[in-house]
């Protein structure tokens, strides 16, 4: 019997220790594995999840209760960094409705092993859900597919070429990290995000134009995108885009041109001024003017194409300059941008702060 027991003991230790040359050493689960389980197999299993999380973090980890299981997919533990012998912090990536996102976490080594001891605040978790909710990112028919998500990385954990600025009623995030709602802080965070990508481009011998993606919810003020675009340009951005949902709800974008002042004395080429008001849309270039009345969705899109075509025949323009209705919201801006892209035969559209 003693022989049988010793065989069984060796078998069990080998199972938990796993393949080492020293069969007596028992391998503990890593912080990486614990984070993977908490956001993976145990995410929707409250009991299993609780076993991986310390008491305080258990209450703070609200995301599993905010979304349905069929909308969620665990991607990977994106990064863990050592803080000291008993703590590490990092980010865990997952997708909601196919949109890559991430939460910051901290893990602590307890007497029972590694445990999730901190997650991003409740507002950040709620923001990820809100931005993909009914009043979240607007949809656009002409949007181009985008591999990025809500944290400046794609589903494989690679950084996207654009730094991502996400804004909800709860605050600002740059590349998935919370930023104080102050222009200086937002500008600095964007500059840091662009600088990191420039460094990456240098390593990769790639050509890179600093590039910012702006994700706003449908009910954001109509001028918010232009305000953030201005901060992004001040931070060094040369290319801009608005993050939207494609008709199926997946990640997509609308390119946004940068309104750049010409040097003093240089002649301004023709640009179509697009004035959005409650009464519709007014397009003007030089002396030529066209009015488009509002439709069911705030814009009669079928009237926009001939209006743009008539202005272009009078004086070929090099782009649109969009003046949003200050009383409107971001959803209306995106609807107009979408329609201008459809009607404007590839002309760039830039937004200006009124």
């Amino acid at each position, binding site marked *: *019997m003693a022989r049988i027991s010793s065989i069984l003991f060796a078998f069990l230790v080998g199972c938990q220790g796993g393949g080492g040359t020293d069969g007596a050493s028992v391998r503990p689960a890593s912080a990486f594995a614990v984070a993977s389980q908490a956001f993976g197999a145990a995410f929707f299993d409250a009991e299993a999840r609780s076993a991986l999380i310390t008491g305080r973090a258990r209450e703070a980890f609200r995301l599993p209760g905010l979304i349905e299981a069929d909308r969620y997919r665990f991607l990977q533990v994106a*990064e863990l*960094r050592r803080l000291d012998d008993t703590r590490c912090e990092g980010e865990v990536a997952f997708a909601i409705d196919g949109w890559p996102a991430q939460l910051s976490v901290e893990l602590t080594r307890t007497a029972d092993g590694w445990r999730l001891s901190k997650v991003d605040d409740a507002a950040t978790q709620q923001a990820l859900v809100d931005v993909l909710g009914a009043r979240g990112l607007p949809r656009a028919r002409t949007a181009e597919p985008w591999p990025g998500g809500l944290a400046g990385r794609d589903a494989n954990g690679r950084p996207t070429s654009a730094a991502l600025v996400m804004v909800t009623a709860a605050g600002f995030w740059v590349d998935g990290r919370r930023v104080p709602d102050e222009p200086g802080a937002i500008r600095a965070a964007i500059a840091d995000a662009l600088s990191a990508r420039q460094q*990456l481009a240098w*390593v*990769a011998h790639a050509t890179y*134009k600093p590039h910012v993606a702006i994700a706003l919810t449908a009910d954001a003020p109509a001028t918010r995108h232009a305000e953030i675009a201005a901060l992004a340009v001040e931070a060094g951005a040369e290319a801009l885009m608005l993050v939207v949902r494609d008709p199926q709800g997946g990640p997509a974008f609308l390119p946004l041109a940068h309104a*750049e*002042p010409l040097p003093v*004395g240089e002649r301004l080429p023709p640009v179509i001024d697009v004035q959005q008001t409650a009464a519709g849309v007014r397009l003007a270039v030089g002396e030529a003017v066209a009015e488009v009345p509002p439709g069911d969705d705030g814009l009669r899109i079928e009237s926009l194409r001939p209006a743009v075509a008539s202005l272009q025949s009078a004086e070929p323009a090099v782009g649109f300059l969009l003046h949003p209705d200050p009383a409107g919201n971001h959803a209306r801006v995106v609807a107009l941008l979408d329609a201008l892209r459809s009607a404007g035969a590839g002309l760039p559209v830039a937004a200006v702060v009124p």
Partner: protein
Amino acid sequence: MNRRVASGFVLLGALALAACKAPGPEAASGPADPVADVQLWLAEQVFADPADMIMRFAPGLDPREFPPRLMVDAPEQYRFVDLWRVRMVDGRLLVDALMTFSGQPHVVSFHLEQVDEAWRVASWSPAPVAVEGQGRAPPAGLDLPATLAAATFRGAPPARVVPIAPSSEAAEEEDRRVAVRVGFQAFTFEGECPQARLTAALRRATRRLGSCHADAFGSTPRAGRLTFALEFDASGNALAVLRETTLLAGALTDCVGEALHAVVTDSGRRRSPISHCTVSVPITFSPRKQASP
């Protein structure tokens, strides 16, 4: 072995298998917890016989060249401290490991890939980086090995610009900077020239010509005259040729030539093209009188 003992073996074996199949959070094994596996390897097996470690490395890599083995003379001089940073990018596990060589802390960076369902070391940074202390890893960043970074920049949309007029502040600032008056003596036209159109276009260029002068001479304006000939060929292309100047400054000549070319080209493009025309453009610069303090 009698039947009772045999059935005991079966029962214990079943228990052992059950324990292996249902690992708790502390008992992840093999590929389920590659990080713990790497930790164990770095702590205990880096200096094992290379022949025994060959399966830990991707085909073609030599375990004897793994940096920790090259940094010390004897295994006793090596100590694994902890994993500094672990990242998962594009299905690869990027590891920065903190270790000491003869007591000196260093970080060794390498990455693992899944080959035949096993995580194997697939590359490493050639030189371990000396670090101070054994504490915190660097803050989160986007630094990646070059092989993984390139994909970030594929398919990025182009930067597009819509030109707008300069702000009134910028215009005022430029007016303060430009300390000369720009004028034209009489234009001379030869050929089929739309005189009114060209005259209007050229007169609109005075501000830009003033900026050219300010760029060339700064705050010490100089009086003088340049005469350019603008020659339109049969296909409507314009060429600006310097005919004479009293201001010898290459930067001024180049800038004025470019400005005139841009003005008349734009004028020709926006309406009917201009061809078979030559116009002589004498430009004068005279310093403005400084306001008395």
